[in-house]
């Protein structure tokens, strides 16, 4: 039972890294970016290409996945996202879902439609047991990396100058600009950070979720659940939401496989009825 809890936590951690980028762009920047999964897929493919074509080790391909996704994020933000900030949410949804379909078709064309594989280094393969709990090495690695990220993100947004400037810009961009905060640059950086995180999540997730060109469509629902349940105004919200959903999904499928796939949705509905603004939402006017 504890083994399955451990598996669920690892799965939730990957969901968190994938989803928190979305809550960064969607919550902090108030932009509905459904194309988030495309950045995650990009990160995954960068990792695959780095390992297969350039022969880089797995650990080196992870930061590369982050960097490339972040860079593409900056470029796209400047070129096509920025004009969309002022548009209505519906326009943003249509726009970003269009991007998703372009990404799916483009990846299919460039990389082929098959599943992509990576070979993990030997020290990340297999499992060991502590007190009867089976611990997969890779899952432990994922938990460590993602846990570290969660802590540093929370710290970054609440305790640093960057974080406070960003929150100020989101709440009132005009006043923030008047105070001398470089709002545009801040937003570009934040967008890059969100995309980079998605890319990293995509690379980390290959081994657990697989990678093919339909990735952004297949997992869009999961990112959205994490963000809607977790709320978009903090890092802790999506973190606990992702944990809860990851564990509920895995444990549910383990205990009652007949309805297991449905549990995650039932949980979402219950949570949204009881806490419509998300788990840790601050009150909105």
């Amino acid at each position, binding site marked *: 039972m504890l083994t*399955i809890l451990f598996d669920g936590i690892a*799965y939730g951690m990957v969901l968190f890294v994938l989803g928190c980028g979305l809550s960064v762009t969607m919550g902090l920047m108030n932009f509905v970016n459904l194309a988030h999964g495309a950045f995650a897929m990009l990160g995954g493919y960068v990792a695959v290409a780095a390992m297969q074509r350039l022969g880089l080790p797995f650990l080196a391909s992870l930061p590369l996945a982050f960097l490339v996704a972040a860079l593409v994020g900056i470029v796209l933000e400047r070129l096509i996202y920025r004009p969309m900030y002022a548009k209505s949410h519906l326009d943003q949804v249509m726009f970003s879902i269009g991007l998703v379909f372009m990404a799916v*078709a483009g990846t299919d064309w460039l990389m082929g439609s098959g*599943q992509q594989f990576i070979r993990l280094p030997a020290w990340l393969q*297999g499992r060991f047991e502590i007190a009867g709990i089976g611990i997969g090495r890779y899952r432990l690695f994922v938990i460590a990396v993602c846990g570290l990220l969660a802590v540093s993100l929370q710290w970054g947004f609440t305790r640093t100058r960057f974080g406070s400037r960003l929150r100020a810009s989101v709440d009132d961009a005009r006043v923030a600009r008047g105070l001398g905060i470089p709002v545009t640059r801040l937003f570009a950086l934040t967008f890059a950070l969100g995309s980079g995180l998605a890319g990293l999540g995509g690379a980390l997730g290959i081994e657990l979720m697989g990678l093919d060109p339909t990735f952004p469509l297949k997992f869009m629902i999961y990112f959205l659940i994490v963000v809607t349940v977790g709320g978009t105004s903090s890092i802790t919200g999506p973190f606990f939401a992702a944990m809860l959903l990851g564990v509920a999904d895995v444990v549910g*499928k383990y205990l009652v496989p007949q309805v297991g*796939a449905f549990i995650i949705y039932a949980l979402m509905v219950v949570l949204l009825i009881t806490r419509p603004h998300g788990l840790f939402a601050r009150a909105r006017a």
Partner: protein
Amino acid sequence: MTHRRTVLGGILGLALAVSAGGAVLAQDAVKIGLILPMTGPFASTGRQIDAAVKLFLAKEGPVHGGRKLEVILKDDAGNADATRRFAQELVVNDKVAVLAGFGLTPLAMATAPIATQAKVPQVVMAAATATITEASPYIVRTSFTLPQASEPMADWAAGNSIKKVFTVVTDYGPGIDAETSFAAKFKGAGGTVESVRVPLRNPDFAPFLQRVSEAKPDALFVFVPSGIGAQFMKQFVERGLDKAGVKLIGPGDVVDDDILDGIGDVAIGAITTHHYSARHDSPANKAYVEAFQKANPGMRPNFMSVGGYDGMRLITEALKKTGGDTEGDKLIAAMKGAAWESPRGPISIDPDTRDIIQNVYVRKTEKVGSELYNVEFATIPNVKDPVKARK
């Protein structure tokens, strides 16, 4: 006014006559409507079959039974609505003589009423749920059925001191087919079976494999669509089930030749029953694999590709028998009972069920040189689809 109308009518009539004449000319070629998932999650199936169809035309030439073949390829992306629409267009606008392809069960099923109404033979080259051929008297199949591949596994397991099996299958037509046919046969032979079904869109197999690991069975019987097979194999090994002595068995989809090398060494030792392996030891297959790889560098033909290759052979054999007549009923009659040597071994079309009769092989995944292959070590000859055979 009336005068002008007759003139207009005349022009219209003339135009119709001309276009009808055009249609007669175009009918000189026998058109085959090939509907495949060329993009989307099942694109591997489409690519394999498309490559096999092209290879067949390149090797055997385009003229059969005195008629030139023309293949019209449509990409349905694995979406049944699209398949149905393309089938309709191909029948009505392009006047195809045969509909072919069909990567998945729902796609073949969606097209069945069109084949029946239009009296156009529907050659199923991939989809593998047993009941498909019952959906229309115009459906003929050149791939396989899952019970056909799964039941021999039950016999093999029972004969090799496996007593307790846990089955994990994807929760849709073919998965349920594989599970029920294996379980029934295996229980009949005195074994015990526990089962779980996995949702089609399932990212992580951890919870299901954990159940397996706690049940401590002698073997894990698995059917998942081939792309996802890699994921499954890796997590099977990650959980240490191979070391715990659980044998991995099942129909050959998890160790699909198309992705076997990508799966890596975790696949070694899997025992599967299937109708085709790229390593099948026959001159016909050696020639086939060589020609396929020459025409498609970096690709290895899998069980889907032979379904497509033999589908084309079936169509051309039928055309030869009818002397180029493309009338649907005559073509179907000519297809019934057709038999030939395929790259997978001797096969024939059952005249009663229009389904394929073929050898099923027991194989073990091994490293041959630097590549992984499914090496056949036993043959069960002339297996009919057991579901329809029992009726």
